[in-house]
């Protein structure tokens, strides 16, 4: 359909057509086709004006600046050449701008440059004025700051360098809230002096005085108690500031993929879809993910509830990796709550064999049950014993993990209360409990196991009393030796520390610090049990002496032990039960037999027997 062309219509075509009239030929932004006949760009009206001005200026300057320029070239011909290209980018680096370079000279040099766009340069020059002003301002500010700093240093030096604060000054300071700037400076200064004491010290002042002031200042600055600060300072004489500052910030949040239910490469994308920004943790872990930020609560996603991952600090992977449980083994986790390490062990065992998770605290046992069920661990036995009583219950495990209760000096960033709540008694009490638990752990382990016979001891404390000392004690008391942890990073344990001289093999243990590894402070030691015999158990004389010793120790720390271990009612029952049994042997003497009952739980069967005999002896007396 449509109109037919009239064949008789001879009219010529009227033009290029309707569309072409509307549509102009294409133009391209950025290219200009309009050119004058000579091929030069047309100048706009304003550009022409500016050109005129510039020419005028040039003439006047050429007259005035001729002489000066000649001088400058003579004086430093090379340097001015060097400056030429610099000037173009001058605005970037303010410091280079030497103040003696006058504005006139600058312009000249710029104008001599051939082939630069004149119009642009004009604008740049205008900018320069503003920039110069701002540079001057910045410089002034910097000077002010420097002066203020210098003044502060002067103040402090006058106070501190040669006169450590007197008693009055300290009193005055104690009443005022601590001034962090002054404290920081004083700390830095004292550390500077202590670094090279002989040459930098103020005559007549002892190292002790400097040390005391340093400890006081550090305590005030970071709110620690003096005992703990002294301990830390002994431990980190050089890195103390790094350590303390690392404790002020939390460690990165990490999660562990539960390999029983999913894989890391599957879990990652799912979490990212939920708005949780994760990335694989570190080279040494194949299951860890670091969480950078999250829009949803990490502990309430459907994946968490389905047991695909566990919220767990990076450091707590380490003891399990050191333990390296194999499939179809019997493994004991002595202090399991809340079940993070236990579930990792189960995952490594692929749900085969047997995992015995024990915790002394009944309430915390519930968390273990919940977590192990959520993570799909089916090979578990969860009990609520005092760890020291376990060797009597069952004692042929292939591997034992003891993550001992500790003072928590490695996880100050998690729990600030540690800073002020721990004193010497607490530490020694912890240490004593740890020794008992470690002996119990070793007794639980079966040295004749084909694949195992390993005990891993770990704490989240950095103190030597709770780590190397405990291991050294166990090395003396049981047939165990240290073996490499299988962790290729971390720092070696101490062999010599202050008055302590430990077994040389203690360098096989590993320490982890917040400031150097960005993990919680942690200690890991792996022991291999080579004989089930308890050394010295044969000679009665030694035993009786030892029991007397332990009794004495317990006399001092018995109350604390109960509090520390969080003994449940059940354990108390046990204690009283065993105590009652004891009373048969020692008529009356309730208190003493109570201690004996306590001891009985962790000392071996044979020892108990001897202890009872000894009781008899007491009676005869």
């Amino acid at each position: 359909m449509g109109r037919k062309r009239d064949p008789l219509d001879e009219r010529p075509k009227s033009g290029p057509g309707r569309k072409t009239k509307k549509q102009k030929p294409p133009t391209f932004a950025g290219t200009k086709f309009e050119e004058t006949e000579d091929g030069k760009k047309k100048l706009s009206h304003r550009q022409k004006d500016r050109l005129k001005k510039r020419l005028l200026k040039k003439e006047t300057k050429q007259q005035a600046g001729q002489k000066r320029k000649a001088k400058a070239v003579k004086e430093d011909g090379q340097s001015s050449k060097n400056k030429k290209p610099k000037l173009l980018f001058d605005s970037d680096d303010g410091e280079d701008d030497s103040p003696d370079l006058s504005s006139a000279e600058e312009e000249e040099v710029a104008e001599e440059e051939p082939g630069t766009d004149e119009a642009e340069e004009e604008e740049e020059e205008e900018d320069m004025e503003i920039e110069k002003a701002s540079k001057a301002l910045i410089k002034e500010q910097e000077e002010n700051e420097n002066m203020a700093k210098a003044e502060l240093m002067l103040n402090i030096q006058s106070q501190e360098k040669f006169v450590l604060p007197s008693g009055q000054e300290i009193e005055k300071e104690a009443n005022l809230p601590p001034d962090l700037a002054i404290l920081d400076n004083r700390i830095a200064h004292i550390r500077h002096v202590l670094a090279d004491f002989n040459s930098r010290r103020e005559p007549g002042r002892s190292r002790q005085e400097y040390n005391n002031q340093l400890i006081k200042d550090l305590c005030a600055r970071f709110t620690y108690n003096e005992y703990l600060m002294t301990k830390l300072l002994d431990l980190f004489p050089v890195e103390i500031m790094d350590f303390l500052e690392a404790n002020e910030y939390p460690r990165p949040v990490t999660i562990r993929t539960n390999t029983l239910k999913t894989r890391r490469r599957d879990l990652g994308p799912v979490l990212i879809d939920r708005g949780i920004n994760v990335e694989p943790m570190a080279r040494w872990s194949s299951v860890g993910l670091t969480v950078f930020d999250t829009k949803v609560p990490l502990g309430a996603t459907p994946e968490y509830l389905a047991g695909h991952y566990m919220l767990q600090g990076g450091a707590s992977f380490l003891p399990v990796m050191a333990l390296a449980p194999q499939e179809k083994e019997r493994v004991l986790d002595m202090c399991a709550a809340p079940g993070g390490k236990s579930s990792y062990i189960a995952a490594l065992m692929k749900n085969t064999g047997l995992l015995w998770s024990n915790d002394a605290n009944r309430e915390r046992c519930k968390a273990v049950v919940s977590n192990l069920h959520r993570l799909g661990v089916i090979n578990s036995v969860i009990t609520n014993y005092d760890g020291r009583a376990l060797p009597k219950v069952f004692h042929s495990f292939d591997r034992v993990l003891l993550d001992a209760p500790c003072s928590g000096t490695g996880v100050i960033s998690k729990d600030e209360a540690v800073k002020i709540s721990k004193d010497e008694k607490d530490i020694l009490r912890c240490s004593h409990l740890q020794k008992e638990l470690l002996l119990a752990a070793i007794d639980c382990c079966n040295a004749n196991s084909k694949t195992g016979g390993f005990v891993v001891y770990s704490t989240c404390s950095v103190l030597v009393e709770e780590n190397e000392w405990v291991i050294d004690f166990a090395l003396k008391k049981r047939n165990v030796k240290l073996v490499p942890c299988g962790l290729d990073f971390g720092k070696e344990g101490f062999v010599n520390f202050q008055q302590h001289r430990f077994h040389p093999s203690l360098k096989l243990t590993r320490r982890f610090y917040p400031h150097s590894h960005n993990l919680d402070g942690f200690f890991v030691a792996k022991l291999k049990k080579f004989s089930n015999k308890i050394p010295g158990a044969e000679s009665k004389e030694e035993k009786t002496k030892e029991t007397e010793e332990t009794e004495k120790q317990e006399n001092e720390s018995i109350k604390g032990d109960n509090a520390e271990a969080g003994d449940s009612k059940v354990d108390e029952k046990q204690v009283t039960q065993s105590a009652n049994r004891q009373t048969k042997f020692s008529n009356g003497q309730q208190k003493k037999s109570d201690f004996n009952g306590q001891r009985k739980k962790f000392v071996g069967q044979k020892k108990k027997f001897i202890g009872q005999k000894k009781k008899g002896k007491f009676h005869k007396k």
Partner: protein
Amino acid sequence: MRPLTQEETNTFFDKLSKYIGENIKLLIDRQDGTYCFRLHKDRVYYMSEEQLKIGSSAAGECLVSIGSCFGKFTKSGKFHLHITALDYLAPYAKHKVWLKSSAEQQFLYGHHIMKSGLGRITESTEQYQGVIVYNMNDLPLGFGVAAKSTLACRNCDPMTIVVFHQADTGQYIREEDTLT
């Protein structure tokens, strides 16, 4: 810890069969070892032979849990399945319900499932049949009882309850204390 009595076994298996039907026998006759049910403090645990052997050396009052807990007997002698049994129910489930992602969170907070949140449902599910609840990614979320049969589900209004809530994985957090 003791084996279940005949009566207890009957109640327990009755309950279990509502969810996994005759697949119960797969739980008992396993290729990879001998597994058994044991009663400990009114709770039914499912464990392997080795676990039973070693676990029984622990004193009764100190044993908190062994193997997987399936649920507990109430004082009146009925059996309640716990969420901890989900790992065994989900793979053998006869009847399933899939939730839309919008209703997922509601169910995890312990609410019943409305018609509006229902994504899919197994054909020929009858009324009061035990069903396992999944989200659309086939992640098991819990279980419940069908309030309406599949047919009745088709033509009811969006706000009617189609599945009664019994247990959901949110209970791991909400009811940590009562799980054991």
